């Protein structure tokens, strides 16, 4: 049977067909749908883990104990999981372990553009790279075979365009996998120096064997055509190449690490001019150059952003394509949704002229004008440690002008440890948790404080107030962010406090509640055109020349605009 599947759905299908028993993940664009989709298979245990490190560790536990496991994350998630990653390469697996990492060239939804291929190289782990949904599924199945044959974890590197494109996939019956025997083996699974030294040798031998076998593996293949041009490529770049050079010869690498040196030499010998076409850093190119081969595309492509058929065509043929110019019009950056509970908090932060160490989530959008509510965004969890660092650097008086702002999912992911630090090292910072009862930015995933598992089953609810109290925070306030007066009052009070405090702004994401309340309208007789309401950056508020009105198809009836209007000119619509 054939089906149109997203690359991510195809990975999930591959996991099912490969007989995976345990699937773990922390959400992150562009990887999220993999595990959401796996959760629909009754045969597979699936979980949202609190963060990627835990997710990988759970998967390692499953694999070592004898059941196939898959773990999925976005590229920056692998930084969080890097500690177990480097050492599971030493221990090896037992049953198969596949680590799916989705990179985001072009940074559609990410804070950096890192390249997971280098992780494979640094950690001595083979890296497979599918180019469409069919390959995504097939490569998962193959990755499990490689993992067990060579006793190694395997990285499946996806990119946004493979993860989020749909193409046709031929479905197969699932393999039945028996639990493998688990045997206690301290020399293999307890990585203390004496054992690790021996395992490092085993790792090197395994990589040599893999390197040799990569010359004949089915997914590294030469498509011999016109020999004037020979292109080495992989992943989505292969598709762009095929689109523009129908007749070129191609060496397509399905496994980009370790490198198939013999195959590369064989290919290079057959073609007149050799090109390497890949997104981001010249990973393959540098290696091929290091082999002493001449490359015509050296430095031809930007390290930043994505490739396209047009870019490849005009670079290789050295022809300027006469493309139509883009229209010069206002941009449309993403914004907080109408009714978003984060909006009120930011309008108060702005009013009080506070600085905020921010974090990652929908609430990062509050950094943009006009709210301009946060000063920094580095990585998940950073806000809490950073606000503490600012206090230690600039003193307690300065600390009264700063808060940390973090989402509920992000707090559980990696904010907790920062808060423990504030208590332990006698800080006095205030941390605001914007608790919208979901992982919003990635499309509404459950987490330990939502009371539901990934399969939608009821789960114990992590009680944030009790948890934070147990860490040692004495002053905890829970505030409804729709209540602007109370929000202001509490923020003012807590930043002044000479002790650490946490404010939990609690109100579910506006997109979670399907019912729309009656929209608001502007009473034109009362409106004085002061533009205060524009300051909250609600997409439903429209200005035509001077006239302010509210788009009733966008308004979700939260009433924040009515709250900030000093002339009571914004009223709820009555029939």
């Amino acid at each position, binding site marked *: 049977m054939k089906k*149109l599947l997203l690359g991510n759905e195809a990975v999930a299908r591959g996991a099912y067909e490969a007989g995976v028993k345990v699937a773990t993940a922390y959400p992150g664009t562009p990887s999220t749908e993999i595990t959401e989709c796996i959760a629909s298979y009754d045969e597979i245990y699936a979980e949202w883990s609190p963060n990627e490190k835990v997710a990988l560790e759970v998967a390692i536990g499953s694999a070592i104990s004898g059941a196939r496991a898959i773990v999925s994350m976005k590229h920056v998630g692998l930084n969080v999981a890097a500690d177990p990653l480097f050492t599971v390469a030493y221990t090896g697996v037992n049953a198969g372990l596949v680590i799916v990492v989705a990179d985001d060239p072009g940074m559609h939804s990410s804070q950096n553009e890192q390249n997971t291929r280098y992780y494979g190289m640094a950690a001595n782990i083979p890296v497979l790279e599918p180019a469409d949904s069919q390959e995504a599924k097939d490569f998962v199945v193959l990755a499990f075979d490689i993992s067990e044959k060579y006793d190694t974890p395997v990285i499946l590197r996806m990119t946004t365009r493979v993860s989020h494109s749909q193409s046709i996939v031929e479905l197969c019956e699932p393999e039945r996998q028996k639990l493998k025997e688990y045997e206690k083996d301290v020399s293999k699974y307890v990585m203390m120096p004496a054992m690790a030294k021996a395992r490092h040798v085993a790792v090197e031998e395994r990589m040599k064997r893999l390197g040799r076998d990569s010359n004949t593996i089915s997914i590294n293949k030469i498509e011999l055509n016109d020999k004037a041009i020979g292109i080495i490529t992989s992943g989505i770049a292969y598709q762009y190449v095929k689109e523009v050079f129908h007749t070129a010869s191609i060496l397509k690498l399905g496994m980009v690490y370790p490198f198939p040196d013999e195959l590369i030499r064989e290919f290079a010998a057959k073609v007149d001019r050799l090109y390497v076409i890949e997104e981001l850093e010249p990973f393959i190119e540098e290696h091929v150059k290091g082999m002493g081969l001449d490359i015509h595309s050296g430095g031809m492509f930007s390290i930043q952003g994505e490739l396209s058929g047009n870019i490849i065509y005009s670079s290789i043929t050295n022809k300027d394509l006469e493309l139509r110019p883009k229209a010069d019009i206002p941009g449309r950056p993403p914004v907080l949704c109408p009714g978003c509970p984060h909006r009120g908090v930011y309008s108060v932060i702005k009013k009080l002229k506070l600085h905020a160490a921010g974090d990652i989530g929908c609430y990062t959008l509050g950094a943009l004008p006009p709210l301009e509510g946060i000063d920094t965004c580095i990585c998940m969890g950073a806000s809490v440690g950073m606000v503490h660092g600012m206090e230690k650097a600039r003193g307690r008086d300065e600390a009264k002008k700063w808060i940390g702002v973090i989402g509920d999912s992000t707090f559980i992911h990696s904010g907790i440890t920062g808060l423990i630090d504030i208590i332990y090292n006698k800080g006095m910072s205030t941390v605001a948790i914007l608790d919208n009862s979901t992982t919003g930015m990635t499309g509404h995933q459950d987490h330990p404080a939502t009371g539901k598992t990934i399969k939608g089953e009821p789960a114990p609810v992590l009680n944030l107030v009790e948890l934070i109290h147990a860490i040692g925070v004495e002053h905890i306030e829970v505030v409804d962010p729709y209540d602007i007066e109370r929000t202001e009052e509490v923020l003012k009070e807590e930043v002044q406090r000479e002790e650490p405090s946490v404010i939990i702004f609690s109100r579910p994401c506006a997109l979670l509640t399907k019912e729309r309340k009656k929209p608001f309208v502007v009473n034109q007789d009362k409106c004085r055109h002061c533009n205060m309401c524009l300051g909250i950056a609600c*997409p439903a508020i*429209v200005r035509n020349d001077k006239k302010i009105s509210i788009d009733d198809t966008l308004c979700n009836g939260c009433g924040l605009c009515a709250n900030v209007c000093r002339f009571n000119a914004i009223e709820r619509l009555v029939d």
Partner: protein
Amino acid sequence: MYVDLMQLKGWLIKMGTTNILIVGVGGQGTLLTSRIIGSLAMELGYDVKLSEVHGMAQRGGSVVTHVKFGDKIFSPLIEVGKADIIIAFEKLEALRWLHYLSDTGVIIVNDQKIDPLPVILGIAQYPHDVLDRIREGSSKCIVIDALSIAKGLGNDRVLNTVLLGVLANQLDIPIEVWLKAVEENVPSSTIEINKRAFMEGYNQ
């Protein structure tokens, strides 16, 4: 009605690869439209690729979905200047993506205006001549007030199905095939209103 799929494919092959770009504002429901076209093209025996936007841009940003079908599709992305049809759910977005339209392409524009943040803030102006510029830059431009039609039917969310109807009229695929695809892809409680929305668009 029974439709002979192979015969249909024969009609369509005349068009070679069909490239459809669907653009709009995050949250407007563009994904459903592309998925309906995709499943329909696959059923007709074509190779199909769709490329979607998930994540950050879904929060009110500019979003685009690429739909390609034909004998063999490699890249899931349509290149600048290669779209046969653009369906724009919002008119400024129509102008933003207009350079993707081929010289002979058709652009379908929902006559709706959603102010982007820079306009709301007064840093930029929503261009007053959007439709004129689109008409000037395209060989064929169809403008429709799909939002009013959807509201008239009693549910502004069926706007995407109205636009699907307009698109259907531009492609050589029998209407029964479309209606079946609509039926299979919308929640069962909304099948009737979606079919009516489709017909409203189709008959424009």
